């Protein structure tokens, strides 16, 4: 690609030189041709002049004869005159003939036997008979057997046309005299055509007497030239002959000139033709010289462009090299600056452990002064207590063993000891296997790490201490919790015993077992008993809750039919429901065998139904039981007052009785809280859905088979 420009220059120069040489050649060529043509014209002019003078001479002679009475009458004197005339011109004419006004030969000499022959059929004779003027024929074969040109001079007697006095000119002879001598180069030749286009003369005899259009019927250029020549004009032309049989050539180019032969009556044309290749062969030497010059030029150009290209290439190489050198220098400077400005120590030591190179940081840190680093054994900078270890590692490194970066304590020039991370890489330095070491000062980091470690240790100690404290506190709390549970348990017993007495005695008294009482007394005793029972229920709930919370509760597991429990619940509330004018509807699909704490389950369902009834003034309470796989769902649905959404979340908290204006709040406030706890304890759950004024649905679901809970 990069030689394209050179190649283009080369081509342009080549084309210019070629063109110059070619134009020179063509100019020479055309000048040569012009010169040849000029020569041809000169020759042709001379020939034309010869022929013209010939005809002029005979025109005079025949005019004289035609005016002679003896000739007109053709008496013996006339014949005598004709014989004499012929004899005196025997070299030039082949016969002299007197033709009568009918075209019949009246007398001819020297071949007198032809006398009496009618030649009126010959075209020129016919012309004569028609025009009564001078006629010069084309070449034809006369009755005498000559191929000749006839020259007829009309003869008149007293203005009457009396035929002609004619001579036959053996045109060959005439032409040979004038034209045959014309020889241009090797085969340039002259030829003649008549105004009718008949070849009058040619060095090729077979052409004579034939029409030029027939002879050269394959060569339109010849025809064009012939037509031009037949008009009597003169000119220069070039024509191509195709299939010249005489030359055994398929095509041959001729340079030709043509000019007219003007006599009084005819206009013939002389043509001189020379084969172009012959003309050109005269300048062949010149052409060869040109070709050689051209070849030399091409080679010179080739060399020139080659060297030009090479020179350019060299220049470019040079530029590239200088650029590369520049880049290399910059890169080297960069590397040097990198190495020198690095705060880490970079050093190279050889196989003997002698320091051969150290960067600025290396010199400054290790040296005291800086010059006392190079040439020193690298081990001299290692602290005494680590020297053996490092030496071992160094020899390992030198034998090609890869080593992980390790920490090393280094003596600085200033007498300090610093800790560094040392990395060693085996490299080649000035064609010698050496070790490159990179040492990063990590003293500060080490100190920081140490501090961090101490802080960490402190922290751990504090955490341990706190943990211990917490553990103690926890232990204390557990103890407190146990005490509380014990307290609650014993307290409840202590509280319950007097209550039992109160309830029992009021019962006896109300029954009249201890003597007659009046109705008012009975009513009031009933109130005492109710209050005592309420208090007992409260205490029982508290005991249950405290037991659950203390994890002291145990399930009393038995296998029973849930149907029985539900029936029991229904029976318990049937009276109350009836009194309140409500409807309790129970839905249960046959018997459901449950293995769990029957009393607790009954307690929970009782609590839910009791709540439902408590908060429903009109309508119904539905108790629906539905087993689902391994659990059973007990839904208690009422048409009661419902629960506000914000209260729903408080539902399962202790003493969260929902304040309701004008409503009897006779519950313990622990019922749902306890039920919820118990449900969880049995591996179940209580959920509530409600909308204020639209009733509520409480769903208690629990497993058909009780499994001891780990966390409750």
């Amino acid at each position, binding site marked *: 690609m990069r030689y394209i420009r050179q190649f283009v220059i080369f081509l342009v120069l080549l084309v210019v030189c070629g063109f110059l040489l070619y134009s020179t050649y063509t100019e020479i060529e055309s000048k040569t041709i012009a010169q040849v043509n000029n020569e041809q014209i000169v020759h042709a002019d001379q020939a034309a002049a010869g022929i013209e003078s010939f005809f002029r001479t005979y025109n005079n002679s025949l005019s004289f004869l035609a005016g002679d009475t003896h000739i007109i009458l053709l008496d013996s004197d006339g014949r005598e005159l004709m014989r004499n005339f012929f004899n005196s011109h025997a070299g030039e004419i082949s016969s002299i003939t007197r033709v009568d006004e009918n075209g019949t030969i009246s007398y001819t000499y020297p071949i007198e036997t032809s006398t009496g022959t009618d030649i009126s059929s010959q075209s020129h004779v016919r012309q004569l008979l028609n025009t009564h003027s001078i006629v010069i024929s084309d070449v034809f074969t006369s009755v005498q057997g000559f191929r000749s040109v006839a020259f007829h001079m009309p003869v008149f007697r007293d203005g009457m046309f009396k035929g002609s006095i004619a001579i036959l000119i053996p045109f060959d002879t005439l032409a040979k005299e004038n034209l045959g001598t014309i020889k241009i180069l090797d085969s340039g030749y002259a030829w003649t055509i008549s105004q009718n286009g008949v070849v009058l003369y040619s060095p090729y005899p077979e052409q004579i007497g034939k029409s030029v259009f027939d002879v050269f019927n394959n060569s339109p250029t010849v025809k064009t030239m012939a037509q031009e020549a037949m008009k009597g004009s003169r000119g220069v032309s070039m024509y191509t002959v195709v299939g010249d049989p005489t030359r055994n050539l398929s095509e041959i180019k001729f340079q030709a000139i043509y000019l007219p032969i003007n006599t009084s009556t005819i206009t013939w044309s002389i043509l001189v033709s020379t084969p172009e290749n012959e003309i050109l062969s005269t300048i062949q030497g010149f052409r060869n010289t040109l070709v050689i010059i051209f070849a030399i030029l091409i080679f010179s150009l080739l060399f020139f462009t080659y060297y030009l290209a090479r020179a350019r290439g060299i220049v470019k190489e040079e530029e590239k090299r200088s650029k590369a050198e520049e880049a290399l220098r910059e890169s080297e400077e960069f590397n040097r600056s990198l190495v020198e400005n690095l705060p880490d120590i970079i050093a190279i030591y050889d196989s003997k452990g002698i320091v051969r190179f150290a960067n600025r940081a290396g010199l400054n840190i290790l040296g005291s002064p800086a010059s006392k680093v190079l040439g020193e054994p690298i081990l001299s900078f290692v602290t005494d207590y680590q020297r053996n270890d490092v030496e071992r590692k160094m020899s390992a490194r030198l034998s090609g063993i890869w080593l992980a970066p390790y920490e090393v304590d280094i003596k600085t020039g200033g007498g300090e000891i610093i800790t560094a991370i040392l990395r060693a890489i085996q490299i080649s330095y000035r064609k010698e296997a050496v070790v490159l070491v990179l040492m990063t000062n990590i003293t500060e980091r080490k100190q920081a790490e140490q501090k961090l470690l101490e802080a960490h240790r402190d922290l751990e100690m504090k955490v341990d201490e706190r943990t211990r404290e917490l553990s103690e506190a926890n232990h204390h709390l557990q103890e407190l919790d146990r005490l509380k549970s014990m307290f609650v348990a014993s307290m409840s017993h202590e509280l319950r015993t007097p209550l039992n*007495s109160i309830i029992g005695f009021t019962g006896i008294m109300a029954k009249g077992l201890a003597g007659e009482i009046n109705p008012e007394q009975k009513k009031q005793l009933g109130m005492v008993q109710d209050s005592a029972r309420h208090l007992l229920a409260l205490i029982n709930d508290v005991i249950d809750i405290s037991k659950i919370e203390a994890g002291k509760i145990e399930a009393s597991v038995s296998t029973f039919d849930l149907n029985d429990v539900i029936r029991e619940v229904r029976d318990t509330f049937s009276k109350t429901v009836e009194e309140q004018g409500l409807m309790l509807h129970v839905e249960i699909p046959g018997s459901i065998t449950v293995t769990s704490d029957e009393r607790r389950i009954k307690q929970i369902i009782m609590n839910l139904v009791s709540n439902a009834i408590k908060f429903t003034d009109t309508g119904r309470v539905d108790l629906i039981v539905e087993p689902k796989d391994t659990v059973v769902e007990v839904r208690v649905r009422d048409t009661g007052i419902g629960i506000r959404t914000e209260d729903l979340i408080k539902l399962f908290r202790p003493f969260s009785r929902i304040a309701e204006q004008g409503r009897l709040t006779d519950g313990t406030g622990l019922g749902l809280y306890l039920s919820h706890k118990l449900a969880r304890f049995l591996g179940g759950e209580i959920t509530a859905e409600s909308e204020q004024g639209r009733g509520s649905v409480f769903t208690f679901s629990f497993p058909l088979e009780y499994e001891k809970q780990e966390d409750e």
Partner: protein
Amino acid sequence: MTTVLVVEDNEKNMYLISFILKGEGFNVIGAITGEEGVEKAVKEHPDLILMDIQLPGIDGYETTRRIRASSSDGKVPIIALTSYAMTGDRERALAAGCTGYVEKPINPDTIMDEIRKYLR
């Protein structure tokens, strides 16, 4: 005359139960500790024993076990007086050899029906 042994440490409860039972025409023997209960059960041969579980000293279970262990009369019906919410009271009572149980507080309306159920 049917004799009922009541083992009960609380004076008022003892009075309450005795009152009801005597009102029904039973002969009532009281014992206020487990040891006394065992002693009287062996000596007096009651027809039925009402056993409070929460007793000072040896409790109702232990007392029941001892009565059952004594050769004199091991088949006397012993009805445990249990408190609500004391989980396992009933099971433990039955395991210790009690024939049945009645929940405190005592209901004068129903207690007699319960007792008569267990009398031979």
